[in-house]
């Protein structure tokens, strides 16, 4: 059941949400299709709920003042629907692999568009999702553990996730052709997403190659744990 969204509700939802493709961060909000919209979709449920009457907000790239962010996905083949208001948790290895593929595609697309910061971040997330899928498969988990029961799995720390898989970098075979790629991937940190410095295009390209290329980390993990990405 959809309910009218207020600015506060949107802010709560998007506080933790990540939009790696978007450069136009706005405190408390995510940017959808790089625009804020009132929105004019005639069949939008949110419009029917009177969302347009909410207090207008300004998009950081626009001088115009618009209504709140519209969550309609008009261009989707399935038709008009609101993107899930509550995050849907991942519960299976296949779902982690879906996320992995999504972040991989994002990273490669952003790299092609010469957006190295987003490409860097997405490539790291892709590896993280792949690792979590491998952990589920290795440990034969039939659901993703709660944060209380396995806090180390609720982490972006790739080094920790590799260790959970039984891969200790210091004991890794240094002659393995994957070793340099593994080293580059291990240098990725979630915190880099908060850095305002400009990342060189070459660095992001190298991380994409280390993650997705031949002799890359994802291909190697997929081979080890028979994952279909």
């Amino acid at each position, binding site marked *: 059941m959809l309910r009218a969204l207020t600015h506060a509700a949107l802010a709560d939802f998007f506080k933790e949400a990540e939009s790696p493709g978007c450069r136009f961060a706005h405190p408390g909000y995510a940017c959808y299709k790089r625009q804020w919209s009132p929105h004019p979709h005639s069949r939008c449920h949110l419009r029917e709920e009177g969302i347009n009457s909410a207090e207008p907000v300004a998009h950081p790239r626009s001088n115009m003042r618009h209504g709140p962010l519209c969550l309609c996905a008009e261009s989707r083949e399935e038709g008009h629907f609101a993107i899930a208001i509550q995050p849907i948790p991942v519960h299976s290895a296949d779902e982690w692999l879906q996320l992995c593929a999504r972040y991989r595609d994002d990273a490669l697309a952003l790299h092609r568009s010469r957006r190295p910061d987003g490409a860097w971040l997405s490539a790291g997330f892709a590896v993280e999702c792949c690792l979590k899928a491998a952990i589920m498969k290795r440990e034969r988990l039939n659901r993703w553990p709660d944060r209380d029961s396995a806090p180390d799995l609720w982490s972006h*720390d790739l*080094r920790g996730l590799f260790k959970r898989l039984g891969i200790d*970098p*210091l004991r*890794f075979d*240094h*002659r393995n052709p994957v*070793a*340099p*790629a*593994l*080293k*580059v991937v*291990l*240098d990725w*940190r979630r*915190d880099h997403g908060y850095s305002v*410095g*400009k990342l*060189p295009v*070459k*660095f992001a*390209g*190298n*991380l994409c*190659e*280390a993650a997705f290329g031949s002799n890359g980390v994802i291909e190697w993990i997929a081979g080890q744990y028979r994952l279909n990405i």
Partner: protein
Amino acid sequence: MDSRPVPPKYLTGGQEYLDALVSLGLIPAFLGWGWDPSVSQWMLVLATSIVDAGGPLALNRLLFRAYNAKATPKEISPFIVRIFSPELIQMSGDRQFWLLGEKNATVNPVPGKSNPEARPTKITNVQKTFMGLELEMINSYQTLPGAVDKALAGYHARHHDWQRFRRNVERLAA
């Protein structure tokens, strides 16, 4: 931040690593041990401009190649070497970072009534937190003269240095 001296065997291994890199033609703008609190482990921090020329993956391939060819010390796994671009340090605006590699740096006090014969005082330690790593002068190695200026000299200089290091490592492994 309390001082955390690196164990002597690490310090010796790092010096050997520095010598090996220099003999292969890689002159670091900075080399020193940094404590990584997120993994509770010592990491060898290497700042070199050739990472901008070759990229981190290509540079790591060469470092692994040199390690496997026993051209760098066995104790220093490339997995514990964190590589940074000097440009990143410049961008952070922290020029005092380079003091970490200046073992003979001194400060000149201003002479005053209480201290009329002020003499230069040697700096014994400098502490910095850089990219989550806790660095100290006492855990760092003396930067070779002119290495920082050369690292920031521009595209052609770093490209030349990259080619030289690549050729040396490839010759070694051949």
